[in-house]
C-alpha cells in the first residue's frame, strides 16, 4: 500500500538523520505557525492528532490542537468551536487588544468546566496526550488549555478469550478510535506514537501501528512498517489478516505474533519495546515480536505477587507438557515399555484393557479425535446448548464407550487430562499448535515407542529453535541464553528485580526501573526493624 510505503520511507529518513529533539523550554512565541510547528515536532506524526485552523470571532487567526481519540468531538464542536467561530455580532465586549483575548474567551465564550492558561510551550504536549485541547491565537504568547477528555468506554467489556482473576476488565472493541483511546488512556506519554493508514484496495481498513518512540528499537519499527507496506490485498477484515501477512514462517504450526484482546497487555508489550498493530473493526491487537515464552504468560502472573505468579506459571507449563506428551507417553509405555510401570499399576491397566480389541495407539487416537470433534462442536454451538452437549458428550459417551469396550477407563483419564491441559495454555493459537502436534507424536509412539516420542520431541524442539519472530530467536531467552532475561521465564521474579527490559528486544532505553527500588524496599524493612527496636 502506497500510504504505508510513504510512512515507512519517511520513518527511515527520520532515523537516518536523527538527532533526538531537545526538550523545549522556551515560552510561546505568539507566532501561531511557529508554535504549532514546535508542538507538532514534539508530538510527532500521529494519525489521531488534529490541528484545526479557524478564524476567531471572524477576525483573528487561531488554531486548536488535540487528539481525536481522546476528546469528545461533539463537545468540541458545540461548546468551543461554535462560540469561537461566531462573528463579532454574537458577542459583546470583545476586547480591542489581542492581549486580553485569552481571558475573554475563558470567561465568556467557551462553555467548558476545567481549563488553564499557560505561557510555557513545554507543558502543552503533555496536556495534549492527556486529552486536553490546546487553543492558540496568532499574536498571543499564551495558550488556553481546555479539558475536553472523554474516553468512550461504551461496549468495553471483559475480554472473552483472556479472562483474569485480578487485573483490568477492559477488552478492545471493534472501533479503532476506542481502542486507541484505551491505549492512550494507559500510556499518557508524548513518546507514544500511532501511525494510521489504510490497507486493502477495497476495504481501506485503517491499520494503526503503535510503538513508544524512545523505547522501541527503530530497526524493529522499520521492519514492522516495511512488512505492512508490502501487504497488497483487497481486504483486511481483522487483525488476523495482518498477522498472516507479516509473520516470518507461515508454514509453522506455532504463532509468531501475539494477538490479544487486552489493552493492558498491549501497553505492557509496548513498554518492553515491542510494536503493536490494531485494525479498525477488529477487537484484537497484534504484537510483535512474539516468543514461545509469551504464550504461557498471562496478566495474572504480573498482577499477583511473585511467588503465586511463578507457581501458577509452572503449573501452566506442566499443563502444556501434558497436553503435548501425555497420550504419546501413555501409548509407548503400554505398548513398548510396560516395565516402566510399577507392577500393581500395570496389572490394573491390563485388567482395564482386557475387553478392548484395539491396540493402544488406535484406542487413544479414536478418543482424541472424538474429543477434538466434541470441543469444536461446543465452540460452534450457542452457549446454552454447548454446556448440555459437553456434559452429554463427555460423561455419557465416555462412560458408554468404556462400557461398550471401545476404550479402557485409563485411556479416558489420559485423554481427559490431555484436554484439560490444553485448555490451561492461555494463548488459544499456541494451544492449537500443541493440539495439532499431539497427533503425530501419538503415531510415532505407536510405531517406535519412547524412541519415537523422543525423535518427535527433538523435531519439535529443533523447529522451535529455528524459528524467528522479527529477527528475534523464538526460544529467547533460553537460547541464545541471557541470564538476565531468564528472570521472567519459568519463574517470575519480583518486579523490582526486573530492572532492565528484555535484552533481545534491543530497546533504545533499556532501563525499566531507574534508581534503586530494591534498596527502597530494604530501607523500608530496616526502618520497620528500627521502629520495633524502639
Amino acid at each position, binding site marked *: 500500500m502506497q500510504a504505508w510505503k510513504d510512512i515507512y520511507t519517511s520513518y527511515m529518513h527520520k532515523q537516518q538523520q536523527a538527532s533526538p529533539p531537545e526538550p523545549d523550554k522556551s515560552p510561546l512565541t505568539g507566532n501561531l505557525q511557529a508554535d504549532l510547528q514546535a508542538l507538532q515536532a514534539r508530538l510527532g506524526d500521529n494519525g489521531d492528532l488534529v490541528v484545526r485552523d479557524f478564524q476567531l470571532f471572524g477576525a483573528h487567526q487561531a488554531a486548536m490542537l488535540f487528539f481525536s481519540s481522546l476528546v469528545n468531538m461533539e463537545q468540541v464542536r458545540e461548546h468551543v468551536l461554535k462560540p469561537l467561530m461566531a462573528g463579532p455580532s454574537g458577542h459583546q465586549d470583545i476586547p480591542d487588544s489581542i492581549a486580553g483575548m485569552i481571558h475573554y474567551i475563558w470567561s465568556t465564550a467557551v462553555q467548558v468546566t476545567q481549563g488553564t492558561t499557560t505561557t510555557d510551550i513545554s507543558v502543552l504536549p503533555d496536556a495534549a496526550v492527556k486529552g486536553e485541547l490546546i487553543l492558540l491565537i496568532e499574536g498571543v504568547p499564551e495558550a488556553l488549555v481546555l479539558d475536553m477528555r472523554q474516553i468512550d468506554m461504551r461496549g468495553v467489556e471483559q475480554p472473552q478469550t483472556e479472562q483474569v482473576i485480578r487485573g483490568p476488565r477492559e477488552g478492545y472493541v471493534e472501533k479503532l478510535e476506542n481502542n486507541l483511546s484505551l491505549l492512550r488512556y494507559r500510556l499518557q506519554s508524548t513518546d507514544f506514537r500511532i501511525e494510521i493508514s489504510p490497507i486493502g484496495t477495497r476495504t481501506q481498513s485503517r491499520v494503526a501501528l503503535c510503538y513508544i518512540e524512545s523505547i522501541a528499537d527503530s530497526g524493529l519499527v522499520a521492519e514492522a512498517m516495511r512488512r505492512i507496506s508490502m501487504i497488497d490485498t483487497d481486504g483486511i477484515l481483522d487483525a488476523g489478516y495482518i498477522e498472516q501477512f507479516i509473520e516470518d514462517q507461515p508454514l509453522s504450526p506455532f504463532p509468531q505474533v501475539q494477538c490479544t484482546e487486552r489493552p493492558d497487555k498491549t501497553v505492557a508489550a509496548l513498554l518492553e519495546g515491542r510494536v503493536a498493530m490494531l485494525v479498525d473493526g477488529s477487537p484484537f491487537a497484534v504484537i510483535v515480536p512474539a516468543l514461545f515464552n509469551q504464550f504461557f504468560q498471562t496478566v495474572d502472573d504480573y498482577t499477583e505477587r511473585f511467588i503465586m505468579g511463578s507457581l501458577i506459571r509452572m503449573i501452566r507449563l506442566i499443563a502444556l507438557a501434558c497436553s503435548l506428551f501425555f497420550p504419546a507417553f501413555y501409548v509407548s509405555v503400554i505398548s513398548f515399555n510396560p516395565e516402566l510401570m510399577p507392577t500393581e499399576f500395570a496389572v490394573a491397566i491390563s485388567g482395564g484393557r482386557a475387553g478392548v480389541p484395539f491396540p493402544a495407539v488406535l484406542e487413544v487416537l479414536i478418543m482424541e479425535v472424538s474429543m477434538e470433534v466434541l470441543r469444536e462442536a461446543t465452540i460452534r454451538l450457542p452457549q446454552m446448548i454447548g454446556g448440555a452437549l459437553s456434559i452429554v458428550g463427555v460423561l455419557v459417551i465416555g462412560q458408554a464407550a468404556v462400557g461398550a469396550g471401545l476404550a479402557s477407563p485409563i485411556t479416558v483419564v489420559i485423554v481427559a487430562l490431555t484436554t484439560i491441559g490444553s485448555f490451561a495454555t492461555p494463548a488459544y493459537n499456541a494451544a492449537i499448535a500443541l493440539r495439532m502436534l499431539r497427533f503425530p507424536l501419538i503415531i510415532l509412539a505407536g510405531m517406535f515407542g*519412547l524412541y519415537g516420542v523422543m525423535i518427535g520431541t527433538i523435531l519439535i524442539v*529443533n523447529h522451535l529453535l529455528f524459528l524467528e519472530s522479527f529477527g528475534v530467536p523464538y526460544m529467547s531467552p533460553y537460547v541464545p541464553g541471557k541470564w538476565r532475561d531468564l528472570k521472567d521465564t519459568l519463574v517470575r521474579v519480583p518486579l523490582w528485580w526486573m530492572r532492565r527490559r528484555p535484552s533481545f528486544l534491543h530497546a533504545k532505553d533499556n532501563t525499566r526501573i531507574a534508581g534503586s527500588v530494591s534498596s527502597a524496599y530494604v530501607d523500608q524493612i530496616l526502618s520497620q526493624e528500627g521502629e520495633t527496636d524502639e
Partner: protein
Amino acid sequence: MSNFRQITTARAAAVICSTIIGVGIQSFPRFMIAAGDNSGPFIALTGVIISFLIYYVLTSLCQLYPKETLFVFSRRLIGRPFAVLFTAVIMLVFVIQTGLTARQFGDIATTVLYRKTPIEATIFLLLFVCLLSSRRNIVKFSYIHAFYLPLIVGSIVIMILISMDNITLLNLQPILMPLNHKFWKGAQIASYLFQSSFVITLLIPFMVKPKQAVRAGALAIFTSGAIYLLIVITSLGIFGAEESKLLIYPTLEMARNAAFEQGVFERLDAIFIVLWVISVYTTVYTTYYVSAYLIQNLFALRDQRMASSVLLPVVFAISMFPTNVFDTYYWSLQLGNAVMVLLIGYPLLLWLAHLIRLPRKKVPA
C-alpha cells in the same frame, strides 16, 4: 541480517561438550577398565589430557586465520590440490564416523531397549532427524547444542549421583598401574571420544571472540572429561574391575541398578535411555553437519543443504556395513586410529607450512 560472528564462547563450548558426550558413554568404562583394571580412571584422565593437547595445536593454528575455516586457509598454505585431497580425506573420515556412531547407537537401542523396532528403522529415524536439522546455518546449529546440553549433562549427573549409593570403595583399590604399552593404548582409545571437538574449526569464523576458542575447548573437554571420568569411577566402584569387563554396556547396567526400587517408575533405565537419545543425536548431528559442510566446501556449493540430503543414503549404507556389535567396535577403533593420525599430522603439516611462509609475508611490510 547476516549471521556473522554470533556464536559466543559459552555456546561454542556447549557445542563441543554436547558433541563429545554421546554414544560412547555406554561402553566407555569397559574399554578403560579392560585397558588398565583399577587404573581405568587414570587412563581416562590421560586420554582427556592428550585430546586437549591435540585440540590446542589445532585451535591455535585456526586462530591464526580467524576469518576462515581450516579448509579455506589450508588452500593458501599448502596449495589447492593438497588441501583438497586432505579435505576429502577428512570428509570421508567424518562420513564413516557418522555412520559408525549411528550404528553403535542402533545396536544399543535395539538389543537393550527397543527390541521390537528393527535396527534399520532406529538408525534411519536418527539420521533423518540429522538431515532435517543439518539444513540450517551454523548459528542455529549452535542453538541446538546449547539448548540440549543442560538436559544431557543433567540427566547423566543425576544418574551418577543416584548410583553413587551402590559404590563399594574396596572395588576402587588399588588405583595405580605401571605406564606400560597397555596404559597408553587405553589412553589413546579414550582420546578417540574427543575427536569430534574438531568441529571448532567450523565455529571459529563465526565466534564473537575467536581468540577464546581454546578457552571454550578447555571448558568443554574438561567438563565432558569429568563426566566420563565419573562414569568410569562409578562403574568400577559398583561392579568391580572383573565384572565391568564382562558387561557390554556398563553405564546402562549402572542406570538399571540405580533405578531399582525407586518408587513410581519400576525402572529408570528407559528414562535414562530416552535422554541418552538426545546426547547421541547431538553427537551424530555434529559429525553429520561437519560432513555436509565439507562436501559443500569440496564442491563449492552455495550451502550445505543439498549436501546433507545426498549424505543420508551414504551414511545409512555405512551404518549397515558391520555385521554385529563386535564388528562395529572393531571398525570404530580402526577409524579412531586413522583420525588420530590425521588430526595430529594435518595440523602439524599446516603449522610447518605457516612457519615457512611467515618470513615471506613480513618482507614487504
